[in-house]
């Protein structure tokens, strides 16, 4: 790790320290994970999205890929464990 990253890390931890100090006297409360409270918001299974919509997205997605093969697969690294034998 270079000096820059070390300095950034220290800066990152600074506010944690101030937080711990500032909240010492706060009693334990329930955590608020969401700004809204609701449960069981689900959607029904049903008709999938139209094919044309996905076709448009597909071509845009492939053009964003750093590398793609001719089938439309995204090209990424080969898994290390599949080589180290």
């Amino acid at each position, binding site marked *: 790790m270079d000096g820059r990253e070390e300095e950034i890390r220290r800066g990152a931890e600074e506010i944690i320290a101030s937080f711990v100090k500032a909240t010492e006297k706060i009693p334990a409360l329930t955590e608020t994970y969401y700004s809204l409270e609701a449960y069981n918001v*689900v959607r029904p299974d*049903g008709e*999938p999205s139209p094919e044309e919509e*996905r076709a448009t997205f597909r071509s845009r*997605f492939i053009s964003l890929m750093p590398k793609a093969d001719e089938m439309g*697969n995204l090209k990424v690294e*080969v*898994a290390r464990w*599949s080589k*180290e034998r």
Partner: protein
Amino acid sequence: MNIKIGFEIHQQIATRRKMYCNCPTNYQEVPPNTNVCPICTGMPGAKPLPPNEKAVAAAVEIALMLGCEIVTGQTIYIQRKHYDYPDLPSGYQRTSLPIARGGELQGVRIREIHLEEDPGQYDPTAGTVDYNRSGIPLVEIVTEPDMKSPEEARKFLRTLVRVLEYTGKVRPEAGGAMRADVNISLEGGGRVEVKNINSVKGAYRALKFEIIRQKERLKKGLTVERETRAFIESQMVTVPMRTKETEEDYRYIPDPDIFPLILEESWVKEIREKMAEPPHLRQRRLTERYKISAAEAEVIVSEREMADLYEAVASEIDPKLAASWFKTKLKKVLNYMKLRAADVKFEPAQLVALLRMVEEKRVTPEQGELILRELARNPADPEKIMQKLGLTPIKPTELAAAIDRVITENPKAVEDYLAGKKEAINFLTGKVLALTHRRADPREIAKLLIAKIKKSDN
């Protein structure tokens, strides 16, 4: 040696849309990266849609079939499990807190059940990723390490697959819809987790390999370290993926983009009332109710649709006759035609009619099988099929004439039989069968042949 084997099984749930987006789920049938959208490819800014309700219900039903206690009345967060892998479009997988706990199947305890989403498909050797599969709903079943051998593990998995398929809510195992992570530890060694297992067969082979590998190491006085390995199916070996010095930290947080679930008792009750009878319980009931053998019942319950068909038929005709037909003839015909019971198009009444013809000896069992084969291919009235195939029963005089002719034309076989070669009668029977266009019962033919030969020999 004391061996402990446990599983984390991931089974795809059959839905039309993915878990958190509206892409279709037929990922095997389309070119790479076709069933995708910003959500299931992790585009910047994409948020999940609300969870697919059918997937939630299916996971609950599966948990109930495995005898689990459903977690009701508690907040079940959909969590983000963070790890970096090419198949994970967002760098985390969504996985619920347990929706159920504490089940049991075949003596193996089920620890807990989660609702998850499938990652994309990564080919580790080609270095390609296809996101068609990304976001397909999964149920994750975590067992306790209660299995003691690869055979036991395989048996458990087979039973599990049957139970899962019984719900009618999952994709068939044959298509790679079930994947497992297996953990195995030998006495004196660390716990090894093996990933990348895509079938029951694969799990068995991976376990076999691991036991040999670990035993070898322990024998040599080497340690077996706690680690994660990958199974390479083509070579039937496992290789190290990463060393697991401490538990990997997935930094779980509740997904801020999805509201948590609270399963309600009344909803679970509704599912319980509508759900299919689990196969292991159904097997027991069938043997007791219809007085059939355990072996027959096992074949019958192997597929839910087969058992449904059996019960429809057994209410109309001798259940024992039906059971023996299911175990031998029907199973054979379906296997031969590569059909599953779910694919069967004929009506239970048509099968009943056929069995009645057999019962009344209007057709031989062999003829019956021919009719059954045709019935499976092109459902129709069995009487009509019989006529179409020319399977009208043979007249005794016609059969006697055929037997005479075969005996006359095959003196060598007759001699052989008389000389003590009993199998010669099979040859002759075959000839008669051919001559009579298989309209006669081979057992009957053999009987008549023997009588005739003995009579003329005297």
